[in-house]
């Protein structure tokens, strides 16, 4: 079986300063993969390059077997990649409802697609705030909206960059519960997060980045067994 997303030798840079030095990453359909690393190691950069927001200087990105290198972000999104970005990036001048319906699609024609009602059922606070502008939401509500907005495109691959960052503990648990429900429903997910225990409980496999290179990759069992990895690469 070929991987849904296959990244090989990925290199990327901001101007003259190179940030990624040959990142490999592979995600099978239905799998949940964690991408870990300390601050500034290149997790967000990896995601931005996969999304086409930053050009790949070297290496290859394949999605469903198609090469993504050089494709504009909108094409990549329309192929079935959706992101819950760092900082949420809710559209502040769109209402909650508009943030959800504006980009809704089911291009892969999945049999039981996400709808507005389903997203509201998953995140009831959003239903209550339906007519509010994105800018009026609390951090937790924004995070729910960012996830809902991505789900409404019925993506084949869902990418979350620090989705629990800055949330109160209860809300954080809410997000983790939501992610495990998505996993149970068969959603393929790439997750970047700082909460290693939670990530181990959720994901099947992990990749650890150190200064733009893969320092380690392996299963949840291997990562939870080897605590030296945590202190060496993750600083926890």
């Amino acid at each position: 079986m070929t991987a849904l997303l296959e990244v090989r030798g990925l290199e990327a840079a901001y101007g003259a300063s190179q940030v990624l030095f040959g990142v490999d990453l592979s995600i099978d359909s239905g799998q949940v993969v964690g991408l870990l690393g300390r601050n500034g190691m290149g997790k967000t950069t990896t995601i931005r390059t996969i999304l086409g927001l930053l050009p790949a200087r070297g290496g290859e990105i394949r999605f469903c077997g198609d090469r993504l290198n050089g494709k504009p972000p909108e094409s990549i999104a329309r192929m079935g990649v959706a992101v819950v970005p760092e900082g949420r990036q809710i559209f502040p001048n769109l209402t909650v409802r508009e943030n959800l319906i504006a980009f809704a699609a089911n291009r892969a024609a999945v049999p039981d697609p996400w709808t507005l009602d389903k997203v509201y059922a998953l995140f009831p606070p959003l239903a209550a705030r339906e007519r509010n502008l994105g800018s009026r939401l609390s951090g937790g509500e924004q995070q729910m909206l960012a996830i809902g907005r991505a789900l409404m495109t019925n993506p084949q691959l869902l990418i979350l960059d620090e989705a629990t960052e800055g949330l109160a503990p209860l809300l954080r648990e809410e997000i983790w519960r939501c992610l495990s429900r998505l996993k149970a429903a068969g959603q393929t997910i790439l997750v970047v997060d700082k909460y290693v225990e939670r990530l181990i409980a959720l994901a099947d496999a992990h990749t650890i980045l150190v200064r733009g290179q893969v320092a380690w990759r392996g299963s949840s069992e291997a990562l939870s067994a080897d605590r030296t990895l945590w202190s060496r690469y993750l600083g926890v």
Partner: protein
Amino acid sequence: MTPTLIVAQILNGVQLGLMLFLLAAGLTLIFGIMDMINLAHGSLYMIGAYLTATVTSATGSFFLGVGAAIIGTALIGMALEMSVLRQLYKRDHLSQVLATFGIILIVNEIVRMIWGAQPVLLNAPEVLSGPVEIVPGFRYPAFRLFLIGVGIAVALLLFFIVNRTRVGMWVRAGASNREMAQAMGVRIKLLFTLIFGLGAALCAVAGALLGPILSVQVGMGESILILAFVVIVIGGIGSIKGALIGALLVGIVDTAGRALLPLILRDLLGRDAATNIGGALASVLIYLLMALVLFWKPEGLFPARS
């Protein structure tokens, strides 16, 4: 200074404001979403006026002329975007200003070659040529009322598109965060071309309607373009609502200032001085307004990016 004079001046101001809105709406979307300063916007306004004049005199129908101008100008606008302007999005503002200024010169020259250097005749349609009595004793030109009506109708249509359709949501999303809009799958190139077409169509409406009042001549786009830029700076770059409010403010302040300031000053300064000073003061009034707004709200009244 009679009440009817004041009412008439306010109506004139609203009418100018609505026409400015037609220009500013496209300009602010292009500036807000594509981060593109397009000086050639005024050229599309001129093209719209010339196409209206030509088709009107060929067919004898002003309304046919307007329809043809809208379609023709929209097509020209889209062609311009796809061929030249698209190359400029990634450049800095100075390059955009220089390149689109170049387009102004080229378009002016082409128009001069086709239509000649003399102003072209464009009259208001027969049915709207007379005045109407709005309330007993108060008469106002029918064509100017028509402009106000069309301005309001187009504004409503635009607000419907921007606020009620998915395309409008993409436009607003693109204005506040273009990259995220792309990451959500918005085909930004196609959207840009459509917005250009829409902006050009609105220019054509303004050019067609102002043509009979002002004058259809080479260079007509430049003076009004400056007003349109003042409008979008006051309203907040990228905001349609801001463009409407800003346009009405500028329209009313400019028109009323020109008509009423000399009258107001006459009691204080005497007739001649009032005419001179009042006129000079009136012409800088909108810039004072702009400075005032920016002092209070540096991003304009309704900035799309916050």
